Structure formats: C-alpha cells, structure tokens
C-alpha cells in the first residue's frame, strides 16, 4: 500500500464529492415532489392514470438502475433528445427514486385517518388545501424514516452514473487510479469518503427532519 499520491488528489476527490452531493440534492427534491404527485394521482386520479402509475412503479422497481441509465442516456438521442451526462444522470436518478418513494408516500397517505380529511372538509377547506395542509404533513411525518433510507440508498447508487462520464466521486476515482496505478488504494480512500458522506447525509436528514417535521427518526 502506498498513499504518496493522496495529497495531490484531494482537490479531485473534493470536486467529485461535490458533484455527488449536487446529484443527490437535486434527486431528493425532484424525486420527493414527483412521488407526492404520483402517490396522489395513484389514489385520486382517473383510472387510466392510476394504472399507468402502478405500471411505472413496477417496471422501475424490477429493472436495474444501470439499465435505466443506459436506456435514457443512449436511447433518448435516437429520439432526437440529446442530454448532457449530468442531466441524464439527474433524470434517471429522479425517475428511479420516485418509483420507490411513490410507494412510501402512498403508504403514508393511507396511514392518515380518513376522519382528518372529513374534519377539514367540514371546516370548509377546499380539497387541495386539505391535502397540502392537513394530510401531507402528517403523512410525511410517518414516512420520514423510510424516505431517509431511500435517499441514502440513492446516494450510494449514484456511483453508477460514472459509467456515462458524469464527473462525480467514482469517476474521479477511475481517473485517479488510471493516473497513479494505485487502484486498490484509490478505491479504498474513495470508499471511505462514500462512507463518511452517507453517515453525514443520514445525520443531516435525521436532524433536519426532527426540526422541520418533529418526526421521530432513529
């Protein structure tokens, strides 16, 4: 083992980590939003939409993320849609995460007693207000731990987007090991960086959730 290359590589590793953080931040926001729409549509939309969302969830959950990524990055250009690697990665990650979180958010919505909706309607709130102000906050509180785990899992899955040349942490590791010929050491260090990132992300989400939602997260 030799780590003489490490001081010169700190900048590259930090740059890669920053891109990984950017990817997961965008995915978390877009994926959560999409899954709230999806879960609401799955329950209250027209029959055709409900079925479409159900199939979407099944297809995404039963195929590998890597294949979805290739399908989007290599497939879309033949429809004339050419995406930057980083945009393709964000799109693939968001679509993948939403499939899991639609189920999670849906379970949360089901867990809010019907009486809450009835009471709010009786108070004269419009259905949309009832959903946004009464049902959704309670649902998010219930599902927050599951949502947190899913976000961390997605951060770890993002390593794969190096395969379409997004310059995130794994891509930087590939470049470094090609330059230094210290493959094992490079991947060892970067694995530790991922470990630190996932622990920090979990900590951040738990504290943030406690503050914003009062959600009990272990």
């Amino acid at each position, binding site marked *: 083992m030799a780590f003489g290359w490490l001081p010169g590589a700190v900048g590259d590793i930090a740059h890669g980590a920053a891109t990984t953080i950017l990817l997961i931040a965008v995915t978390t926001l877009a994926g959560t939003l999409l899954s709230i729409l999806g879960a609401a549509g799955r329950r209250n939309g027209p029959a055709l939409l409900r079925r479409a969302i159900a199939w979407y969830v099944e297809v995404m*959950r039963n*195929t*590998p993320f890597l294949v979805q990524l*290739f*399908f989007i990055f290599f497939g879309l250009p033949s429809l004339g849609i050419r995406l930057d690697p980083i945009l393709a990665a964000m799109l693939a990650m968001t679509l993948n995460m939403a499939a899991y979180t639609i189920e999670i958010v849906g379970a949360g919505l089901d867990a809010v007693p019907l009486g809450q909706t009835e009471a709010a309607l009786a108070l004269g709130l419009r259905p949309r207000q009832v959903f946004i102000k009464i049902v959704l906050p309670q649902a998010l509180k219930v599902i927050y731990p599951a949502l947190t785990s899913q976000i961390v899992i997605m951060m*770890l899955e993002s390593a794969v987007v*190096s*395969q379409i040349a997004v310059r995130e942490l794994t891509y930087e590791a590939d470049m470094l090991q090609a330059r230094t010929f210290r493959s094992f050491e490079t991947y060892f260090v970067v694995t530790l960086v991922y470990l630190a990132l996932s622990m920090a992300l979990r900590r951040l989400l738990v504290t943030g959730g406690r503050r914003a939602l009062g959600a009990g997260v272990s």
Partner: protein
Amino acid sequence: MIEFTFWDIVRNLLLAARWTVLLSLAAFVGGALVGMVVLFFRISKNTWSRRLASGYIALFQGTPLLMQLFLMFFGLPMLGLRIEPWTAAVLGLTFFASAYLAEIWRSGVDALPLGQWDAGASLGLHYLQELRLIILPQAFSITRAPTVGFLVQLIKSTALTSIIGFEELVRTSNAINNATFEPFKVYGLVALIFFVMCFPLTQYARSLEKRAAH
C-alpha cells in the same frame, strides 16, 4: 459491420442471462451462508462481537456496491491472488448480500418475545440448541417476505458486475449495442428480461407480506 437480426439479439441476450441467473444464485447462497455467521456475531451476548458485526453491516450498507466490487477486483491481486471477473463478482456480491441478509434476519430475531429464549433455557437447551431449534426457524419464517425482496435487489445488482468485466446480461447488451446502434431495442429487451426474472419474485414477496399481516 456484422448484421444482427432481432432474433440474434434476443438469443444472445438470453444466453447471457444464464450468467445473470447463475451469479444471482451463487451470491444468494454465499450471502446466506456468510450472513448466518454475521447474524451469529450480531446477536451474540458478547459486546465486542456485536460491535464487530454492526460495523461490518454499516460498512457494506454505507458504501456503494460498485466500490465494494472494485476493491475486491483490485484488492485480491494485491494479496497475490490471480482473480477473474467471475470470482470478484461472486465474492463481492456475497459479502454485500451477507450484510443485508444478516440485518433482515436480525430484525426477525428481535421481533421474537424474550420468553422464547427463556422457554428454551427452561427446557435445558444450551445457546446453540436454542438458536437452531427455537429462535432461527421463527426468525427466518417471519422475515421471508423481506428476504425474497432482497433477492430481487440482488438480481438487479448483478448488473454492476458488467463494470468489472463480468460477461453477464448488461455487458453483452453493451457489446450488441455497439454493433447495432439500436439502444432502445437492446436496452429495452434487457430491461424486459430483468423484469421477467424479478417481477414474479416481487409479487411473491408481496403475497408473503400480506399473509404475514393477517
């Protein structure tokens, strides 16, 4: 350029899918065996062995599988072992699976009332007998649904071994795509093959979950 008919593509993908299936099975069996050992440490009465197992699980659940595969593929040669992608893939996925399976089964052990242990002890069974005859059979049976669910995740995870050069479904599809330039067709078919492998298991896991809820 070689001409590929639709059936050539399908036939080649199906032939490659054999390796995906074989790798999934090997990793599941290997993961179950190593996972039992990790579980044994995880629920032991010794604080240090519990900590060791928790650390092992946190390490594998807190880092990307791709990194674990890279470390396996580049690490074993450092120990002087010549390694082929197949060996690295099986070993990498085995350790990965063992951490998840140990954690799933541990939740089953935790769900059992403490009285089950006491009852075993009062029957005069020693620790290993209690585990083998009373605790583990119940823990496995109540965690059947998440275990099958994890198998689906494992099958999908075999896709990553294409990156360290193991010739499975995704690697073959990359090669076919490079020759045919028909990414929609090729990756669509790959997705379909994975779906056909995983969907029945997902449905099975769901029915087990429902049965457990009643």
